[in-house]
């Protein structure tokens, strides 16, 4: 092997080394031993790579290259490794020689192999860190783990040849007592059931209190109409009602078409084409129009209420309002409930018209029932009570949607993610309750024979 001057770089054209070669190099050039990084390999890549990166293969050519000042100072921060040399442990006559990058990335392959390191019956072992290139806290932890195991086997260990900054890091971690691992609390099934039932009951209780508070606020508003914020109400009517016209109109129109289309085949079979007016009229006016309108409102307005109030809760606007002596219920909740109670019935009427128009269109196209005929029959078939029942449901749905939306908004706590969760919840709960209420209406009406 050629003589290598102290501080010189080694250039390997074929960048293949094995650990034996590198050990040999260390022994052959004790001169180099004193310097920190005597061997650098330039394998044609732009950046120099240390020799120990190439453990596992044979070194075929070494030539000398003068130390170049232009090379960047290759000592990186302690935790970084210029090479990708993984951490390794090799036996020494009197202990263990550690090498490579003892960092989070370099140590992974070694992690489980440490258990295999044998003591060979020695009483004392020196842990040589001369050739450790980089060390970070992960490396120190793994080292501690190794030392602890050796100590458990009755071996006295000493550290040797570690860079001062590495020693400092080792001391730092050794001095700090290992913090106890506190496991995440495990809950038993029964406890989980109990907790979720408790949470559901608590939510129900809170909802009832909220309904009560809103009712009181509404009563106070009726007693002192001057306190009601009409401007806010009108604004809400605009956003929940007028702005919803296109979507409500389109969907109920399509629904009317679907109902007429589905009925058309059956009716034609019995030659009862004209009864399409009964079918569309009754189903739209009584059930579909109020329901579809309420569901759209829950998705559009209920979620908006929850998101608005939720955001205001997170940004402490609600708290600010309270400290300024403004009741959030008066400002935020009542106008929304009143506005939706006005807007939803009106939207339902609009949905009735659009739905029937859709049915009419389909009746003419599929069954040959003309518009005049259809309307003639429609007037006879559909009682005003049917229409009023449909419209009458709307304010109830409106209360459900507005109350649930606002309630979920006020239930927001913590951060922005909670706003999203409460908004989703408001839509799901409102839709669910609207359909439950509709079912209850059907039962009540059938008992009352309406």
């Amino acid at each position, binding site marked *: 092997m050629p003589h290598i001057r102290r501080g010189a770089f080694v250039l390997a054209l074929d960048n293949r080394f094995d650990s034996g070669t590198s050990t040999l190099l260390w022994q052959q050039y004790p001169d180099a031993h004193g310097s920190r990084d005597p061997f650098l390999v330039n394998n044609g890549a732009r950046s120099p790579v240390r020799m120990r990166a190439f453990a596992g293969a044979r070194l075929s050519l070494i030539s000398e290259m003068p130390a170049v000042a232009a090379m*960047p*100072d290759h*000592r*990186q*921060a*302690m*935790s*970084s490794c210029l090479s990708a040399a993984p951490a390794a442990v090799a036996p020494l006559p009197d202990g263990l020689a550690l090498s490579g990058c003892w*960092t*989070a*990335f370099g*140590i*992974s*392959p070694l*992690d*489980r192999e440490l258990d295999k390191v044998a003591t060979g019956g020695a009483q004392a072992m020196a842990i040589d860190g001369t050739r450790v290139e980089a060390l*970070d*806290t*992960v490396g120190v*932890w*793994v080292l501690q*783990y190794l030392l602890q195991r050796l100590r458990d086997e009755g071996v006295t260990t000493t550290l040797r040849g570690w860079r*001062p*900054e590495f020693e*400092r*890091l080792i001391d*730092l*971690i050794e001095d*700090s007592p*290992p*913090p*106890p*691992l*506190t*496991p*995440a*609390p495990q809950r038993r099934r029964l406890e989980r059931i109990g907790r979720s039932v408790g949470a559901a009951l608590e939510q129900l209780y809170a909802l009832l209190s909220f309904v009560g508070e809103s009712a009181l606020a509404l009563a106070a508003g009726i007693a002192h109409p001057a306190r009601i914020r009409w401007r806010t109400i009108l604004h809400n009517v605009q956003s929940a009602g007028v702005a919803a016209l296109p979507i409500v109109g389109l969907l109920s129109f399509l629904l009317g078409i679907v109902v007429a289309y589905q009925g058309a085949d059956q009716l034609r079979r019995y030659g009862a084409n004209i009864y399409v007016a009964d079918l569309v009229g009754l189903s739209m006016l009584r059930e579909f129009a109020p329901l579809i309108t309420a569901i759209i409102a829950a998705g559009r307005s209920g979620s908006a209420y929850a998101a608005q109030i939720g955001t205001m809760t997170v940004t402490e606007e609600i708290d600010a309002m309270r400290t300024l002596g403004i009741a959030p219920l008066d400002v935020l909740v009542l106008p929304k409930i009143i506005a939706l109670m006005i807007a939803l019935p009106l939207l339902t009427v609009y949905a009735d018209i659009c739905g029937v128009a859709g049915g009419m269109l389909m009746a003419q196209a599929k069954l040959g029932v003309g518009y005049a005929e259809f309307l003639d029959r429609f007037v006879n078939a559909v009682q005003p009570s049917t229409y009023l029942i449909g419209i009458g449901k709307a304010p109830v749905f409106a209360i459900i949607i507005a109350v649930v939306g606002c309630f979920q908004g006020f239930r927001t706590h*913590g*951060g922005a*993610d*909670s706003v999203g969760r409460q908004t989703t919840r408001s839509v799901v709960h409102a839709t669910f309750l609207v359909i439950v209420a509709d079912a209850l209406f059907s039962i009540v009406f059938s008992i009352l024979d309406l």
Partner: protein
Amino acid sequence: MENTARTGQRNEVVIELRGVSTRYGERVVHENLDLDVRRAEIFALVGGSGSGKSTLLREMILLQRPDAGTVRVLGVDLGSLNEREQHALLKRIGVLFQHGGLFGSLNVRENIGLPLREHTRLNDELIDRIAAWKLALTGLEPATAALYPSELSGGMLKRASFARALALDPELLFLDEPTAGLDPASAAGVDQLVTMLRDTFGLTIVMITHDLDLLWQVADRVAVLGDGRVQAVGSMAELAGSDRPLVRQFFEGARGRAAQAQQALTTH
């Protein structure tokens, strides 16, 4: 102590900005801005609101690209990186976001262990132990590990996200307002933590802060941003003697004078 961590590389530049310009529509945030951050120094960016501190920070951590100019971090030009190289670089960088940036769906321990779980093949127990230690390093109780971010107070949140930024033992740490919203005792803890990290691990720290105590006690060099440029760079003592109006503005006022007076007391 300080010297050993910095031997021979006092002047090695780890972040180098040249001719950086950034615009939001019509508004010019940076105009031909140059800046150097050296290894193992604690570097602070200060400036009024809207002076582009956060934008500059985002440009250093690959979250945003400048409209013109080059940004070199740890010797690599950010403009020329492919996705793999970006990942490699990001593993060497830790970031403490202003509002923590902890994942709400994970508890504190999982948050800290996440980078290790994603990028290394260490076993779970070791990761949990390292996470617990990092947590202790930032001064949080071990019991905090099992809590979720929504259950933490502001100061705890900051410390926990500090611990996550340190998970991979980065070489370069970016701190966005590390003491904002902390009580004085916690803020002093951050002072010590930052100094300790630099001295022990040789970390380079770049921070945005308005905390004059932090600036006086901890920062090695401070860059004052204003009018799209770096108005002045230097130690706080040097800047205090500057006569540039935008730098003066920063030191004027009772708070600036109080912090300065306190600094004078502690040094003499």
